[in-house]
């Protein structure tokens, strides 16, 4: 039974009742108690993206990040296995690693010098005689999270009992495979990361990467600054082929440029954009064949879709967008630039061009990000008003149809992806 949300009951309803098929209560953005519940019920009980394998290139490589609000270290051990370890000494709780990325033989606490190996085992304790008959070192490893990867994407979870990662991803795997084709024949590597904050709830950004509707409005300034070919490529508002699929488990894919959904399906008719003429000349000078050049240049804008994974990462055209909730009204976003990993004479010019394309839109001074962040700030401010009035996520609800694959599908400007994410939220936040 759907309960009507009113001014008198909005603060009494259980969180799961705040999500209805086509609307959600504004309280979901503003209530600190709901935020606390989300941090445990969602972020401690599902697969959270923590790294791309290229960020851990060698034995000893590490990256420090977060799973929900818990600080973790993602490390690669001597045998090549990837571990996710809570960044907290077993002795008195000090953080072990405050560097974002690096190479190490292990982690030593700065407080009393307890030392741990790359897989989290406690190796050394100074002046150990005081612990004789008191502790067993084998029981004091760092807390280790389940860590699994697919297609180079590394996820961790604090829940020992949830389904394996590949089961959680389901039909998403096909789209991850497609996304990784933007290496143009080379594997993908991380090139750099922008980080910025906005004054709003994390779910506002979760909605945004599947919000085709905002693009020509919020990003009019970016559209006005790019060449006509790029602007034309992003003109999906009235393209009936541009659709969003609900892929299950809160995941969805928004195909803004469907002709670039599968970069291998190139019939040779699409003209390479003039803006890449200089790059093409550089690649010819590096003796790359015309067909290999075509492959990397067609992939310069990434793939033609945003693949939105519940709850914290989007594989968005040519980059990863990662969200980290800080508080009910503050969120950190990372925009991770990616490019092909190969011989420098080939990938050097490609990645320099990709970095410039990324800087043009993304990051705290890009031509796109600050406008997105302004929109999200405004949602947080406005949502304080009239708490009984719902946030609408009903666009396209009457034109959804199953795709041949069986995915609920509607136009890319519709809110099918948001409805998918909120259905998963409702299920995870339910008291049942």
């Amino acid at each position, binding site marked *: 039974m759907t309960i009507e949300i009113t001014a008198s009951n909005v603060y009494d309803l259980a969180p799961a009742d705040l999500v209805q098929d086509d609307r959600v209560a504004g309280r979901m953005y503003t209530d600190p108690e709901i935020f606390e519940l989300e941090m445990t019920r969602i972020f401690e009980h599902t697969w959270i993206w923590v790294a791309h394998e290229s960020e851990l290139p060698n034995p000893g490589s590490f990256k420090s990040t977060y799973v929900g609000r818990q600080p973790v270290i993602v490390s690669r051990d001597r045998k090549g296995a990837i571990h996710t370890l809570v960044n907290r000494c077993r002795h008195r709780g000090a953080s072990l690693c405050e560097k974002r990325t690096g190479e190490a033989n292990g982690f030593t606490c700065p407080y009393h010098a307890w030392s741990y190996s790359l897989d989290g085992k406690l190796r050394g304790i100074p002046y150990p005689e005081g612990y004789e008959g008191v502790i067993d070192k084998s029981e004091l490893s760092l807390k280790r999270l389940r860590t699994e990867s697919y297609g180079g994407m590394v996820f961790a979870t604090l829940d020992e009992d949830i389904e394996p990662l590949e089961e959680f991803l389901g039909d998403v795997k096909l789209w991850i495979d497609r996304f990784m084709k933007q290496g143009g024949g080379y594997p993908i590597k991380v090139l750099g990361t922008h*980080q910025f904050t906005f004054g709003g709830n994390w779910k506002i950004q979760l909605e945004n990467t599947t919000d085709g509707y905002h693009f020509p409005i919020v990003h009019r300034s970016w559209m006005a600054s790019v060449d006509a070919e790029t602007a034309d490529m992003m003109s999906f508002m009235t393209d009936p082929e541009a659709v969003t699929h609900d892929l299950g488990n809160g995941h969805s894919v928004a195909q803004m440029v469907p002709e670039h959904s599968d970069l291998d399906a190139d019939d040779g008719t699409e003209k390479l954009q003039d803006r890449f003429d200089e790059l093409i000349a550089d690649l010819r000078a590096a003796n790359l064949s015309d067909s290999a050049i075509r492959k990397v240049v067609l992939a310069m804008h990434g793939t033609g879709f945003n693949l939105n994974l519940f709850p914290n990462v989007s594989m968005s055209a040519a980059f990863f967008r990662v969200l980290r909730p800080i508080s009910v009204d503050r969120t950190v976003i990372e925009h991770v630039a990616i490019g092909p990993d190969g011989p420098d004479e080939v990938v050097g010019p490609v990645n320099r061009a990709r970095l410039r394309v990324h800087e*043009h839109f993304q990051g705290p001074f890009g031509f796109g990000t600050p406008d997105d962040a302004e929109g999200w700030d405004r949602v947080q401010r406005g949502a304080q008003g009239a708490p009984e009035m719902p946030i609408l996520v009903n666009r396209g609800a009457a034109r959804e149809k199953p795709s041949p694959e069986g995915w609920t599908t509607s136009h890319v400007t519709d809110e099918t992806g948001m409805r998918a994410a909120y259905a998963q939220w409702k299920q995870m936040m339910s008291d049942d």
Partner: protein
Amino acid sequence: MTETLTHTAAPSLTDPRVLRGIELAWREADLLDRKEYEAWNALYAEDGHYVIPIDPDTTDFDNTLNMVYDDARMRGMRVTRMTEGYAIAAVDSATTARTVSRFLPVEVSDAEVVLRASQVLVAYKRGRHDLWAGDVEYRIRLGATAAEDLIVRKVVRLVDSEAAVPAAGFLL
């Protein structure tokens, strides 16, 4: 016997060429606080670069991800973005007040002045004050007169360039 001085004395802040550089840096800061972006862009040489790196140590801006790495073409588009009224972040941007100080002349010749300085900027928007602090390096090409001096390179290295900063509707 008197010792002959062979080394060049460290450039002095009172050197008129250095003073011209500082004057230009302050003119630029004032234009940015007043959001006079077209006049701001006119202070840059055609081959000039405006850079806000992420990596605190890099000088290889081509091969790293930056927050801003603008040549003349990107600067021109940025000025359009900040002034034409489509960018909601720029239309409703924070009010800023910045101080550039602690100038240190690094290189001085009749052609060029390189200065190092610190910048502290406070941005106010909707009840919130954000602090943006960092080092700035200015490379200034001296013209025939002070009015013809141009910025060839400005690099803003934020103290928190590797952390999450707010998304900005103004320029540093």
